[in-house]
Structures are given as structure tokens and as C-alpha cells.
């Protein structure tokens, strides 16, 4: 595949693949965006390097993808922006279906806290070393992960309680 990388993005890819040779899997482009796929083990170091050395200082978003039936079912995507270089970069990590666990990057960006909680709430991907790890949208005692492909559109009937519609009487 032919890559059309700008000078700064080429520099990013080169230095990243140089520094993290073992973790770097591939780089590809789609709809005008650049995606870098890496191994999950080194994610904190990679993120710190991107932030401190390559000036991707702004973490826009973290989200999950369920690639149901594919190998390494889950994907976690980090959307990074370099304000100085005016570049956008997607950093991707793939996780297996059984026990999708990876390290939290809250040490690098504190804003990752709520985003990682959202990914956990929707996909059940666990993050180690997170300061406040619990669900963010669904009730604490909810047993399902709504954005997984096997989850029915209208939810599991009766899994979330509705309020009592007969008022309390003494």
C-alpha cells in the first residue's frame, strides 16, 4: 500500500518504528487518516514518547471497536492530535476475545480516565493501574457490555429496573 505521509507524520512513523521496533506492527491510511497499529504491552511508553518527544499533546478520544468473528476481536483506538504540527494520528491496539486487558494511560493523559471507563462500560475491556475503575454510563450492578455485537439492540429485558409505579403506602 502506498502511503501519502506528510513530513511530520513520516517523521513520527520513522521515529516510532525505530524506538519501539518490537511493538510496532504496521501503519496504514484510510479516508485521509493515518493509523498505527502497535502491540498492547508497551502502550504507556509509546504514548509517553508520542506526547513528550513528538508533541502529540492532545488526546481527543479513546474508543473501542468490536471486530466480531475476527481474530483479536477487540480494538482500542487512541485519537491523538499534535497542535504544533497540525497533525492527527490514530494509535491502535488489538486485544483477544478472552480477557481483553491492557494498561491504562492515565499516567500520561489524565483525561484518559473517563474515556477508558467508557470503553470498559461498553466493551468490557479492562485497564490496569486506573485510578478510579468503574462503569461510567450503565448502572454499577449491570452485567452486560452493550456495544458488543452479541448484545441485543433493545437490551436484556428486565436487566435495568424501572421505578416502582405504585407509590409507597403506609
Amino acid at each position, binding site marked *: 500500500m502506498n502511503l501519502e505521509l506528510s513530513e511530520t507524520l513520516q517523521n513520527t512513523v520513522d521515529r516510532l518504528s525505530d524506538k519501539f521496533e518490537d511493538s510496532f506492527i504496521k501503519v496504514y491510511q484510510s479516508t485521509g487518516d493515518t493509523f498505527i497499529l502497535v502491540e498492547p504491552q508497551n502502550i504507556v511508553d509509546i504514548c509517553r514518547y508520542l506526547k513528550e518527544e513528538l508533541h502529540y499533546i492532545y488526546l481527543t478520544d479513546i474508543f473501542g471497536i468490536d471486530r466480531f468473528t475476527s481474530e483479536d476481536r477487540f480494538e482500542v483506538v487512541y485519537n491523538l492530535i499534535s497542535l504544533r504540527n497540525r497533525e492527527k494520528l490514530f494509535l491502535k491496539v488489538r486485544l483477544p476475545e478472552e480477557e481483553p486487558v491492557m494498561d491504562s494511560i492515565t499516567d500520561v493523559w489524565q483525561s484518559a480516565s473517563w474515556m477508558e471507563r467508557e470503553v470498559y462500560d461498553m466493551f468490557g475491556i479492562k485497564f490496569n493501574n486506573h485510578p478510579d475503575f468503574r462503569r461510567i454510563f450503565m448502572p454499577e450492578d449491570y452485567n452486560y457490555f452493550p456495544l458488543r455485537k452479541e448484545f*441485543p*439492540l*433493545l437490551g436484556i429485558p428486565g436487566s435495568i429496573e*424501572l*421505578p416502582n*409505579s405504585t407509590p409507597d403506602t403506609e
Partner: protein
Amino acid sequence: MGIESSLGDGFLTTKVDALTNWARSNAAWPMPMGLACCAIEMMAFAGPKYDAARFGSEVMRFSPRQSDVMIVAGWVNYKMAHAIRRIWDQMPDPKWCIAMGACASTGGMHRCYGVVQGCDNFLPVDAYISGCPPRPDALLHALMKIQDKIRTEHSVTLDT
């Protein structure tokens, strides 16, 4: 001075029911349960152009203790349902409920796990309004329907 001058030296006969219903129906104070874009139309309904004051409903009461009609304006998720039901239970009787728009009535386009498919799952709704969002006229229409309902109710009962 007042009504006596046009009636002359006479008197007026009516029923307590009719008098109570007349008073209640022309002072149905809304409890605005604004949850989404319908709330914007609800504001227009209270504003000068559509002027809910013509029907005695201009006072949006943000306290459930002082309100008569709850207007559920917008989609209701499961977490919010508990708060809405609690506010509803705090409203003194008699009380009425309007489900404003497609989402409050049926769940609308939010056909998913987090949204209650119609607020009548946990509230006794008196009037449903179609539309996404409904125009303020439609809300006025629902209010007039509620007024009609109030006027035909038996408001006085014998306490045995």
C-alpha cells in the same frame, strides 16, 4: 364594581364540582421535565408568541410541590426514570401528565438498550403528543385536552 354590577341584585348558582373544575382547569401549572430538544419547543409554548398564559399555564413550576401537570419533554433513559418518578410522586394530587413528542410517548428513534420505550412504562400519561419535536401549538392542544379532561372529572367526593 365587580360581577355584581352586570348581574344586578341577584345570585349565581353553580355546583362545587363545576367551580372547582373551572378553577383547576384554568390554573394547570406545568412541571417542565425538559430532557431533550422538546424542551426548546416547551419554552416557546411558555413564551410570548404561543403564550400558555392564555390558558393559565404560564407559571412553570420547578418545584413539584406547586405543579399540576408534568410535561415529559424528551427521551427518558433508565437512570433518569427513577428521578422522574420521584418528582412525580412528590407532586400533590390531583395531577396530570403529558408525554411530549415521539420519544416520551414510545421511545421514538431511540430504539436501544438505555432508553425507556415510552414514559407510560412508569407514569400514568393523560395526553400523548406526536411529532419530533412537536410544535408549540401541539403542546397547547394537549394542554387543552387536559383542561377538557379536568372539566369532566368529579372533583368533589364524599369523605366517608
